[in-house]
């Protein structure tokens, strides 16, 4: 299901931007001809997808911030990222 390597460095490709807009009620991912609402947790994950941190580091950071079991976070984040890669909203450098 999730094939994101621990060493992969996820980042938003050129042409995809995470933005916050009051009138639209929160965080949004802007992409070619598409807009996706990002819930608070997705936004926290996406903010960390800068191309610098590895997937494993992002998971570690989220485990600390949210005080949740690593295994669970690893699986949830991998699932989100893999889905975004398929939609061309994320790159794994």
């Amino acid at each position, binding site marked *: 299901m999730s094939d994101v390597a621990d060493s992969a460095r996820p980042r938003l490709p050129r042409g995809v931007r995470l933005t916050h*807009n009051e009138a*639209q009620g929160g965080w949004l991912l802007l992409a*070619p*001809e598409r807009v996706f609402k990002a819930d608070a947790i997705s936004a926290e994950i996406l903010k960390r997808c800068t191309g610098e941190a590895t997937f494993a580091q992002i998971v570690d950071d989220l485990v600390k911030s949210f005080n949740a079991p690593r295994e669970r976070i690893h699986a949830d984040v991998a699932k989100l990222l893999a889905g975004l*890669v398929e939609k*061309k909203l994320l790159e794994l450098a």
Partner: protein
Amino acid sequence: MNAPAQIPAPLGLLAELTHRCPLGCPYCSNPLALDPRVDELDAATWARVFDEAAALGVLQVHLSGGEPAARRDLADIVKAARAAGLYSNLITSAVGLAPQALAALAEAGLDHVQISIQDSEPTSADRIAGYQGASARKRALAAEVVRLGLPLTVNMVVHRANIGRVRAMVELALALGASRVEIAHVQYYGWALKNRAALMPSRDEVAAAVREVEALRETHRGRIVIDAVVPDYYARFPKPCVGGWGRRSLNVTPAGRVLPCHAAEVIPGLEFWSVREHSLADIWRASPAFAAFRGTDWMQQPCRSCERREQDFGGCRCQAFLIAGDARAADPVCHLSPQHGLVEQLAAQRDDLPYSYRHS
């Protein structure tokens, strides 16, 4: 009518920077009466419109036309969109936009480029565009978009002359490095309506193309996003035109009139306001044209009691007027419309007439 507080925030702004275009595509959705160059808004006015749009909640601006590159000040306009915080999308024919000019637009903050390609077959593509050599220029610009690292969408408008080549079109988009391709069946407004008999495919051709797109989506999953605009003359239900009138998007004409959709001026009796006299927020909330078909109160039967009324919003108001003769009627492409028979008759009027090319 809705109280102002219930009016949703728009997501997208279609900025028609000019109606000038070097191509003559017979399916052009621009109106038959085009705004002249002298009436075009200047870049400073566009900058104000973008700021007002962003404040209203707009996230994306589509820089369109005509051919937006016919504007010498296009880079300033792109810069203004970026400064307003909008995601900018350039919708270009690629003719009149030299590959070396694209770097300046990328530098100005352009987010995405959409290039129209008329066919996978170059000779046919140039014939449809009414412009010799258009196809080669499009391929050259696509290569430059990719070289600059900008995301590329290829827009393929599908009609009788090319509907058998949907697979080749998607393969061409992949070969050009596009991350997204639109397979857009012609929508019959403006010049396309004038050319309907020459453009209309048969029901069987449409069904085959729709199946092909489904199969291609599976084949290329993860490599390219394939979006399809459905051919609504053969649909059972209407398209939710512009996501519902005055609900998600607005369109500013080259001269500054603000429309709920790009074809709305065909509907008689609507009063459009201009950005020259009003703020975008006032227009969105209070202009008579936006209020006319917002929500569901304006609906007649069968829409009024239809369980899909909040889903497709009665379909397209322009099409209701153009075919049923009443902008408040159900979109006659809906099989529940009492005028649906007219659509079937019109779709059957297919004739290999010469194109009536769009001209300024």
